[in-house]
């Protein structure tokens, strides 16, 4: 499934006037591509992802999914922190998608087992989330996203809250899983290394209002592992992105734009779910 984003803008209405979070984003994510979006804080990366997920409405422009739908769901999301249901055990957290859609229980139990085995957490099926480490929780969230059986997986800084070593491990794990059954992935991150290690192509965004500055193709051979990080191609790509990004990061830091305020974004998105009243 290709994702075609055309002329996407998003404006937030605040007391101090309108804030332009996205200023006309054009992107085409190819079928079965691991696509990265990188940019400074407050460049509207998360907004972009929410719009693709259908959680927020764009002010202008469109998001189209082009291609034959081969799966049950269109998108799955993985958030910065796992956002599991603490009152449910791991094996009841994973099948959120199929269960909420109304699939038959025996079927989604099989699916749950399959994906828990894939993320190597089958032993923890009956544990509650508060008994798991941060990395394990994030793996459960990944299994949940996969069990939803989507065409496109949207990841919003999925490893940002983990310690450096766990992050490395989970990156490898994610690569291993992705190589098995290539799905279209859109990964939002502010970690350049992570983007280069995982992605086929990376869109570099400018500071608010966010627009795509450049799309970089990552020429590092697959399958990639931790060792790929010392590959000359890897380093070259890293430098290229940083050259594009440093000016934007500096600009974002100095302006300290209010659209970086997450509570504002959350309020806005809530308004969109419920409409007026």
């Amino acid at each position: 499934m290709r994702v075609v984003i055309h002329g996407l803008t998003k404006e937030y209405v605040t007391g101090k006037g309108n804030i332009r979070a996205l200023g006309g984003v054009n992107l085409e994510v190819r079928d079965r591509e691991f696509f990265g979006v990188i940019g400074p804080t407050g460049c509207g990366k998360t907004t972009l992802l929410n719009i693709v997920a259908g959680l927020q409405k764009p002010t202008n422009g469109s998001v189209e999914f082009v291609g034959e739908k081969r799966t049950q769901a269109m998108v799955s999301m993985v958030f910065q922190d796992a956002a599991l249901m603490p009152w449910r055990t791991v094996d009841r957290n994973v099948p959120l998608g199929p269960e909420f859609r109304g699939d038959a229980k025996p079927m989604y139990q099989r699916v749950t087992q399959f994906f828990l085995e894939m993320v190597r957490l089958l032993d923890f099926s009956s544990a509650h989330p508060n008994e798991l480490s941060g990395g394990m929780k994030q793996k459960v969230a990944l299994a949940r996203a996969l069990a939803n059986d989507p065409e496109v997986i949207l990841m919003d800084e999925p490893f940002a809250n983990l310690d450096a070593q766990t992050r490395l491990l989970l990156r490898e794990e994610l690569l291993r899983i992705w190589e098995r059954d290539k799905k279209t992935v859109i990964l939002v991150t502010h970690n350049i290394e992570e983007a280069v290690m995982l992605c086929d192509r990376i869109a570099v965004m400018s500071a608010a209002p966010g627009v795509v500055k450049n799309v970089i193709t990552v020429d590092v051979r697959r399958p990639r592992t931790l060792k790929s990080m010392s590959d000359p191609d890897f380093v070259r790509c890293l430098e290229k992105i940083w050259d594009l990004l440093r000016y934007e990061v500096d600009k974002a830091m100095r302006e300290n734009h209010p659209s970086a305020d997450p509570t504002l974004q959350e309020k806005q998105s809530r308004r969109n779910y419920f409409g007026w009243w």
Partner: protein
Amino acid sequence: MNEAVTARPIKISERGWGGGSRRKVTLGRILFGIGCLAIWQWAHARLGTEWIAGPAEILGRAAELARTGELWVHVWVTFGEALLGFLIGGSAGVLLPFLLRLSPRLTRALDPYLAAAMGVPKLSLAPLLILWFGIGLMSKVVFVGALVFFLLFFNGLAGVQSVDSRLVSMARVAGGREWVITREIVWHTALPFIFAGLKVALPRAISAAVVGEFIAAEAGLGYYINNARSMADTVGIFTGVVLVTALVIVVNGALELVQARSLAWRPVDRDMVV
């Protein structure tokens, strides 16, 4: 992948520096109880029955009331009023936050009015309610209901508003309907808050019924206490108070059993009171 399971809450006794600690606690508890009774008995002996009724007298009175059957009538009346009011006010108080969730704008618009309604001292409404609903069961049920409603409503609202918005987003992306999201996510998030509200509301429901009976009633523990007061029957007042307390303790115990079962997933029993 070698990741350690984060520690479950460790009981102090598992750590090894409190082998006999549980026994010591039990012993201390018993000693404290005996101490209290001793002070009570001493005050009783010092000041006389007309000021402070002694434990033995109260026990005797309670036994006598139980034999004549009067006790069960009073307890049953008070319990019935509290229970009915609790069920009506409680279910409304729990349900309404879930309905208000569907419209955050309406909730915000209503906010000052709800705060004002919360500010009305409910106990001062009792005379008015008796004027409207008479001195029978109805006025106490309404009184208890109003009190319980507000306690549960505000706790329930806090619970509903603390729902993890990402979880709801996820469920929506997965195609969950509003009803399924409410049942599977919002309800479970709000449950600890609701239990915290229940914990506060249950004893208050019984107190409210008793206060209602003080003002005007024909039966019930509050009626018994007030009646004893008018006849300068100190033993009767004390017996009434002890019976109300016993009723509250029994009801609280029942609640805690239910709570332990419903909230087994919570690692620590944190009370959530707003």
